[in-house]
């Protein structure tokens, strides 16, 4: 398709600017929706994968869950005080660690980090935060791949002496100390004072839900300190009713050593947990498996997206075809004249296909621009960082322009088959 032919096709389209624009609208909307949807799905994909990856792809997570019997009792005896005792225990963690055992000469686990959630208020003077209090050990940053921004994280020495120290997540630090440096300051957790030893880097959400999925809004204290300062039993009082909960470990994260089968370790952990927690109050999660499952779901999602895109472009293409058919009918005499001047049928096919190609090419470029603009707008409204797959721009233009070639063929063939004698006849 020569440049002069494309220029001639463009000139012909400009003769009917309004009609050409309306014809291109279908392609503009089709390509724009594809670009916008690709961007939004890419944002969602990166968000989900990021959350899963932040859980640690070499990690196996054991979560204590409130069992069905406890939830039923909460509903049934909502006006009575009661005690709930469930979930992982420290002894079980030792058992898991011992059962997995070393792999040859080296340990199978790089680390095993327990976490315990404490339900207490956090405040500095009159400034309060609804941050989650999590008791954990010094290995937490390495296992969760979370780095320190200022000061340090909790240490083994803090653990050994049950020190009254804490580290703050980035959001919690900003809420409690909007202006100053929190390191060295004191924060009140429940009625106990803790000295802040460090602030963590922003990390983003991990996993899908639950208080442990917001590390930026967390205050960490040494694991042992939680038992020494707050006891094994946690009591919440609401409307005169006392809810006592005894959960030693809300979550335990095992980091499996490189070269050790994640599946084998997960299987051992699963068997052990199944045999001891038949009530379903401990759930084993393997982020690596989650990621694999997500990728499978993502492939299906991409097919759905591709189908939607194909339907949008099909509608746009049919619009182009209709307009080109109308064009052909209106330019009957011109077709006859060109044939009289020596144009072959192929010349006529080329001219009409060039016109629908140019129409769709321009429509696709406008579609890519408006789709990108729309994605940015949606991103601003939803307050997320807009991401574009670089391939989506050329792909949108190529697919849109190809739609022109495809749907321009029928009108072009009809134009070429027009009998010049009838075409030249003046009604």
């Amino acid at each position, binding site marked *: 398709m020569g440049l002069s032919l494309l220029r001639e096709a463009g000139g012909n389209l400009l*003769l009917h600017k309004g009609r050409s624009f309306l014809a291109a609208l279908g392609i503009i909307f089709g390509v724009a929706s594809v670009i916008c949807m690709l961007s939004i799905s890419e944002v969602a994909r990166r968000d989900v994968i990021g959350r899963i990856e932040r859980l640690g792809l070499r990690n196996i997570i054991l979560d204590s869950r409130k069992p069905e019997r406890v939830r039923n009792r909460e509903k049934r005896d909502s006006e009575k005080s009661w005690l709930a005792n469930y979930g992982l225990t420290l002894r079980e963690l030792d058992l898991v660690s011992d059962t997995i055992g070393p792999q040859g000469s080296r340990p199978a686990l790089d680390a095993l980090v327990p976490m315990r959630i404490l339900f207490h208020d956090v405040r500095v003077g009159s400034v309060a935060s609804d941050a989650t209090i999590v008791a954990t050990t010094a290995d937490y940053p390495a296992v969760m791949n979370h780095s320190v921004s200022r000061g340090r994280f909790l240490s083994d020495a803090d653990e050994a002496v049950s020190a009254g120290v804490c580290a703050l997540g980035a959001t919690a630090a900003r809420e409690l100390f909007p202006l100053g440096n929190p390191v060295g300051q004191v924060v009140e957790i429940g009625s106990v004072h803790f000295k802040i030893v460090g602030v963590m880097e922003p990390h983003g959400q991990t996993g899908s839900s639950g208080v442990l999925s917001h590390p930026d809004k967390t205050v960490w204290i040494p694991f042992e300190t939680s038992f020494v300062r707050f006891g094994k039993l946690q009591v919440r009082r609401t409307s005169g009713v006392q809810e006592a909960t005894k959960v030693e470990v809300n979550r335990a994260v095992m980091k499996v050593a490189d070269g050790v089968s994640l599946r084998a370790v997960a299987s051992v952990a699963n068997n052990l947990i199944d045999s001891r927690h038949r009530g379903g109050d401990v759930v084993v999660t393997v982020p690596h498996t989650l990621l694999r499952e997500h990728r499978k779901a993502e492939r299906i999602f991409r097919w759905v997206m591709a189908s939607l895109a194909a339907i949008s472009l099909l509608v746009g293409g049919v619009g182009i075809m209709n307009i080109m058919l109308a064009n052909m009918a209106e330019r009957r005499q011109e077709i006859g004249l060109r044939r009289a001047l020596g144009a072959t049928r192929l010349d006529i096919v080329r001219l009409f296909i060039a016109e629908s190609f140019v129409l769709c090419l321009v429509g696709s470029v406008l579609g890519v621009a408006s789709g990108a603009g729309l994605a940015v707008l949606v991103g601003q409204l939803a307050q997320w960082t807009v991401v574009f797959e670089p391939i989506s721009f050329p792909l949108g233009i190529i697919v849109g322009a190809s739609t022109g070639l495809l749907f321009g063929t029928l009108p072009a063939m009809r134009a070429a088959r027009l009998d010049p*004698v009838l075409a030249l006849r003046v009604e």
Partner: protein
Amino acid sequence: MSLLKLDQVAKIYPMPGEDVHALRQITLEIDAGECVSIVGSSGSGKTTLLYLLGLLTDPSRGEYRFDGAAVEDLGDRERSALRGREIGFVFQSFHLLPQLSVLDNVRLAARYAGLGEGVGALQARSRKLLEKVGLAHRLQHRPRELSGGEMQRVAIARALLSEPSVILADEPTGNLDDTNGDRVFGLLQELSDDGKTVVIVTHDLALASKTGRMISLKDGEVVDGSLTAA
């Protein structure tokens, strides 16, 4: 030897119910350099005959030879090339493209004729032809800005660009007043004098009588093909 030769040519348009016989058993020879008019009432087959001579449609029966070559043996590409190079059309309703300037309308003829000339040479020759038909001052005008006579003169210049051996004119003065009609007919006669074969379809017997030969058609048949006094 005849340049255009029809032997027992018929043109039938298949229609639901009954076929339309536009031309029946036409046998006709036109020599190179002749100026011929085709006359007849509406529906007599004049335009069909002209378009058939111009390779725009095929005979349903019989044989048509253009400069000795049997037309039915030619494919679309060869036939289109022959049409673009050797035949120039002039239509009653001009058929100028409204989006193009006068100069570009003339140059359009080169688009499919395969003239192998550079843009500059083509432009120069187009200008010269427009000068010849008295439109040197209208080069950049659009067709809508011209009178009927001027538009037909542009169409004649366009027909001449590929230096064809045959000019086929379908009612070239049909939409013009007498003055402009005479001027256009004069141009066509000049082309004939220059050695081109000119075939004119017309209703106007006075005008037809000025050509070398008048072929009368009635119901698709030649009823008279005599020489005129001209």
